[in-house]
């Protein structure tokens, strides 16, 4: 005769409401883990898109994501000729805010040379760039549609294709355009500053052939470190491997946000532990007389401990299931990416089990100290 199940059935409504409340709390914990994972995934999404082995940037910088980096546009040719390099591409990166259809549009603009390394990943809708100028491929998260025309920096760009899941470390959706367009967008002066520069005698430059980075892919039988070392011999360049670039992003660019969310998740888990412990303690307090009666009529400790521990586990596991289901169903409505990994959910499930066992310790301690004589008298 399972006393825990009988007691749960007897107070089913109250038990389910408690489990629902706990589920909401565990749902928040799980969503925080998902946001944490999403932050890292977003941070790495852009840097992983070119599927490069080597990043070449301005000397003395850790660009182009952690710091600004400007190198000459012809750097690509120099890098492409290094031994072991199979292909290379020039890239520019720029954050941009535009007003489109009366709404603010924050974008991460990537300029690249179509046909070379660094373009958009799989096109989800439409096509890639073909005409070369004033076209762009945008991520679905921009809310733009194929064929839509957008004013950016004084020029009109037509959306010809859409990608999925391409965002910057700040969560802004990515758009790709031809390198020349992006250089104009990034480096061309507006008319008034241009007139002032002309008055100062600065030669008119238009948009210089400046880029932010060169990415290169290395042949499988060649050494990435050797290519990095070779690129570093040019005094105006710095080079790093893909792993080093990813480390810079996760350890520098999003580190504080990671720590913030990680700490908050820890606090939430601690709060959850305390709440679970209090719920189980209160549930045990409510049964003091029943526990005293059980002891008096001869119930062994194992039976009483089982009643409390089984209820604690049931509460935790039902709460966890409610929380997980809730977050899975709403995660796509979050403004930033929420990445729920099965291993994270399994780990949280295990933590909940451990927390329930630890938290039930308080209730078990109380139950084992109940004097059977409590059952006698009024």
């Amino acid at each position, binding site marked *: *005769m399972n*006393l825990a199940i*009988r*007691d749960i*059935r*007897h*107070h089913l409504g109250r038990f389910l409401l408690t489990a629902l409340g706990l589920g909401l709390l565990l749902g928040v914990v799980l969503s925080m883990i998902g946001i944490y994972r999403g932050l890292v995934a977003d941070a790495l999404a852009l840097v992983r898109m070119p599927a490069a082995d080597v990043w070449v940037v301005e000397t003395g910088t850790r660009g182009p994501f952690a710091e600004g980096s400007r190198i000459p546009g012809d750097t690509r040719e120099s890098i492409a000729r290094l031994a072991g390099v199979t292909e290379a591409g020039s890239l520019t990166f720029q954050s941009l805010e535009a007003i489109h259809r009366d709404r603010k549009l924050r974008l991460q603009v990537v300029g690249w040379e179509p046909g070379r390394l660094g373009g958009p990943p799989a096109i989800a809708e439409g096509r890639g760039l073909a005409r070369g100028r004033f076209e762009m491929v945008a991520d679905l998260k921009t809310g733009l549609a194929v064929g839509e025309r957008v004013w950016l920096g004084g020029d009109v760009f037509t959306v010809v294709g859409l990608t999925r899941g391409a965002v910057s470390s700040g969560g802004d959706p990515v758009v790709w355009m031809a390198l020349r367009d992006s250089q104009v967008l990034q480096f061309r002066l507006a008319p008034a500053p241009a007139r002032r520069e002309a008055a100062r005698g600065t030669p008119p430059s238009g948009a210089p052939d400046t880029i932010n980075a060169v990415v290169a892919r290395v042949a499988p039988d060649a050494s990435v470190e050797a290519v990095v070392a070779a690129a570093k011999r040019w005094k105006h360049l710095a080079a790093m491997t893909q792993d080093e670039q990813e480390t810079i992003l996760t350890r520098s660019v999003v580190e504080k946000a990671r720590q913030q969310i990680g700490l908050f998740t820890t606090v939430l888990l601690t709060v959850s532990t305390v709440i679970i412990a209090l719920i189980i303690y209160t549930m045990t307090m409510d049964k003091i*007389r*029943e526990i005293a*009666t*059980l*002891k*008096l*009529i*001869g*119930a*062994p400790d194992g*039976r009483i401990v089982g009643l409390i521990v089984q209820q604690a586990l049931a509460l935790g596991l039902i709460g966890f299931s409610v929380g997980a289901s809730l977050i899975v169903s709403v995660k796509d409505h979050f403004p930033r990416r929420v990445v729920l990994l099965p291993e994270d959910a399994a780990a949280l499930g295990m933590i909940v089990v451990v927390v329930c066992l630890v938290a039930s310790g308080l209730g078990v301690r109380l139950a084992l100290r109940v*004097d*059977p*004589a409590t*059952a*006698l*008298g*009024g």
Partner: protein
Amino acid sequence: MVVGASAPLVELRGLAKHYGEGETRVDALKAIDLDLRPGEVVGLLGPSGSGKTTLLNLVGCIVEPSGGIMRLDGETVWDGRWLRPDLRSLRLEKIGFIFQFHNLLPFLDVAENVALVLDMAGAPRAAALARAHELLDYLEVGHRKTAKPSSLSGGEAQRVAIARALANHPRIILADEPTAALDGERAGIVMDLLRKVASEQAATVIVVTHDEKIWDRFDSIFTLRDGRIVSTVSPRAGG
């Protein structure tokens, strides 16, 4: 009734209980000698603080005596120390409890409340339920076996509590104010049931009570005052 015909089920020799030491010492029971035989239904009377409940707790192996010897059903259970390491199994085996407020578990139905005692003793579920049904029928509450305790009347709940106390065939039944919450007629019925049980199952029933309307149902009434038995009367024998 088999009073005096066989060995005592409850034998107390100089049983004592005190709380605290030195100036704060309170002697709750002082050197109680008592023999109770199968079939006897006895009452414990006395004002509050006289030691009735302490005596019930001592015989129920809930509280540790401070001195004396206690034998239950022929087994010496206390002789300066507990001679059984597991008192709960001792209670499960030898003693049935009936409470003033029934203390039925609210999350079990009537039959399960009775079967629980057997379940804890290791009986198979079917056998435990069969015994529960048999007892509930015997106590004339078989028709309520699937009801929850909250839906029972006071008399029905007390019958179920008696059934639970009898489930494991104990030979010592301890009842704490079993009729306090019942009217005169129902109190009489409960006492008749306890007498029937004591007689048919050769058990001893010890009842703590203040309820004057049931005094004539006891074989003996022991009055306690300041931790001692100060008088013994036998209402059914006219004394």
